[in-house]
Every structure is written in C-alpha cells, then in structure tokens.
C-alpha cells in the first residue's frame, strides 16, 4: 500500500528531537493501550501483519496527526469492530450488549508473562529452495500492491546485493490478508546510498533491507 506510513526518504518532517530522561509512557493511558493491544491480540483473531496494515489504513491526516499510541488505539478499535469482537453500540455506551455471553480471557495474570516472553518466531522450516545466494545481484521489483507489503517505495526498482539468507519466513503480504503464512526465503539485501538516492549521497554509505524472495528478481 502506497500510504503515508511508507515514509523512508521523504522530506519536510524537520529535525529529530530526542527527549531527555524520557519516561516509558507519557500518560497512564498509553500503557493501557499497549496492554489492551497485547491482550486482545492473544485472542488470535488477527496477526502482526494484519495489525500493522490496520494502522497503515488510518486516514493519512490521522496517521500523521495522531501520537503513536493514539494510532494503536484507533486501529485496534477498527479491528475489533470489523471482526465483531465489539459492536459500535457497545463502544458508544461503554457496556456489553444485553444478552451477550461473557467470555473467558485467554490470558490471565497467571499466564501473562508467558505471552510477554514468548518466542515470537516467524521462521518456518518448510524446506524452501532459495532462489538467490549471498553475493548475487538482484533488483527489487517495481510493484504497487494496494494491500500490505514490506517493500518500501524507496527501494523498488533498485539494484542491490544479497548479503544473507535468513531461511523461510512468514510472508506479510499474504498473512496480513489472512490468506495464509505462505513462508518464503527472506534475505538481507544491501543497496549503495547512491543507487537509492543519487550522486549526492556519500559513496561509502549503504542501506540494507530485509526482503522476501517475491520482492526480488535477478539482475
């Protein structure tokens, strides 16, 4: 999706402003939003890729204007409504609709540390036969999918070199649509800064991205 979230290389956002002695949360509600997001995720009605895509699909002005946890809150509400986990009426009233069953949370205080410390691996041992090997020259494909993708615009059409093979991993473009994990080989691909940004870039500089096999073609 060619959304405002895909902002690598954009101008105009001003300087980076580090905050001295920054707290973990700037208001208590931020922590509640993070925690609610984790606990609602434990219902496994969505996955990390679908969750990211729901944030990308916020209206562009909201995406740029909301704080980080405001984006999480808005997107989580959208997901819960879309999946029927809550209704618009319940959201407006703040109370469970009459006659609905009370559920049992999949995660309780006794088991919550297990999800915090869980090994969230996206590697899949599917015996994929990698198309590329370290040192191969590749070109990132020119694609413009309307759905979720992890190939940023700034790398599309650019020439790079395969640096490392990370084995088969869950493919976000498919998983985000609930169309299956479709694991395929993930590679670290290194691009020169000049290939990405032109002759003004420092000739010694590089940018690398982790890209799935379907994002790449031989060059």
């Amino acid at each position, binding site marked *: 999706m060619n959304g405002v979230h895909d902002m690598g290389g954009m101008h105009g956002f*001003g300087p980076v402003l580090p905050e001295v002695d920054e707290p973990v949360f700037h208001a208590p509600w931020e922590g509640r939003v993070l925690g609610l997001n984790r606990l609602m995720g434990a219902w496994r009605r969505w996955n990390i890729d679908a969750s990211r895509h729901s944030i990308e699909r916020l209206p562009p002005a909201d995406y*740029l204007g909301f704080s980080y946890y405001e984006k999480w809150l808005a997107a989580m509400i959208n997901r819960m409504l879309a999946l029927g986990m809550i209704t618009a009426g319940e959201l407006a009233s*703040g109370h469970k609709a009459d006659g609905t069953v009370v559920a049992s*949370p999949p995660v309780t205080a006794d088991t919550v540390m297990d999800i915090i410390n869980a090994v969230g691996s996206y590697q899949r041992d599917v015996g994929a036969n990698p198309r590329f090997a370290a040192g191969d020259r590749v070109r990132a494909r020119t694609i413009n999918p309307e759905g979720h993708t*992890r190939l940023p615009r*700034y790398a599309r059409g650019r020439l790079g070199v395969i640096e490392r093979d990370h084995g088969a991993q869950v493919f976000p473009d498919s998983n985000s649509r609930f169309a299956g994990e479709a694991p395929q080989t993930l590679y670290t691909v290194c691009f020169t800064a000049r290939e990405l940004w032109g002759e003004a870039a420092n000739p010694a500089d*590089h940018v690398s991205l982790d890209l*799935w096999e379907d994002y790449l073609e031989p060059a």
Partner: protein
Amino acid sequence: MTGHHDHDHGGQEIPSATALRVKALESLLVEKGLVDPAALDAIIDSYENKVGPRHGARVVARAWTDPAYKARLLADGSNAIAEVGFPGSQRAHVAVVENTPSLHNLVVCTLCSCYPSSVLGLPPVWYKSSAYRSRAVIDPRGVLRDFGLTLDEGVAVRVWDSTAELRYLVLPERPAGTEGMDEDALTALVSRDAMIGTAKVATP
C-alpha cells in the same frame, strides 16, 4: 482524539478525552470478559519496570570483555543473547552489527516502529517519529548531527531498515580509558542510543 501535545502528565490534571476513551474501552473489554484486568496491570508493570536497555547493555559489555562471546554474538545474535539469560532473552530474532573506526551502523524502521525490544525495552518517541523514519535512510549523517554526533566523511555509514521480523542491535565501539573495567562497570556505560546507532559510548 487529541493531538500528541495534549498529554495528561502523571495523571494529576483533568484526564484528556483520550484517557477517558481508553478507560471506557478498558471497562467494556473487561465487562465482556475479553481482557483480564490483572493481566493488563502485569503487562504495564513489565514494560515500565522489567524490560529495558540494561539488558542490551549487558550483552554489549560481555562482548567487549569476552572475545569468544563477541564472535558468537556477531555470528548468531539470537542464541548469544539467550546465553545472557534475562527474562525474554530467548524471545526475538536479533542480529548484532558492529561499529568500527571505519564503519558506523544505524537502525531504523521506516515502515512502522520495529525495534529490538527484547534487549532495549520500548522504543523512545523519536525512534517512532516521522522525522527519524523519513530521514534515517536518506540523510543518516544529518540525523546523527541532530544527536550531536558528527561523523568523519571517511567513516562509512550503514543503515539497517527493519522491514522484517529480524531486529538489529548495534555493538558500539568500546571507548578508550575503559581497559581496566569489568562487565558490570562497562554495562553502566552503554547507552540505549549507542545500541541504536545515534550515539557513541562516551569515555568515562
């Protein structure tokens, strides 16, 4: 919703519209049995008090003092980090990239906010900001200057855009004057920003 300047710092002021909205949502989700409030409290406590950059600093300090560990860390970050054995250390797929006198590494996630939280905790606001995400890949030297770090033109910059479920941790250079320090003392020197690549570790 309110803009990002309207925070109710410390909860001592009148709650913001967003704070009230979150409270209403939480109470709805608890009433529906979708969320256990005690589990919610435990998650927040964990992020506020249990995870954080000191875990990453410990990994860096061990690499500085144990060459065999450093070799394992650079070859297979995930397993070497698990050796250190803090809670959550086995969680993430982490690659460790080493700064040298001729190479400076910088980590970003241009598409969202991917961050090595198992070793650094939650990311700071600037890491998630549009300014950092947009500029780190096209103007990394300018971003470093925003942090007060001016690199020599002869030092190569390598930016790692975290586009997959692999997280990057920078192994900073060990500063001069720390030759006699042990792992605990070195751990205290390593800043979060040095492990993202927006700072160097200062000589004590």
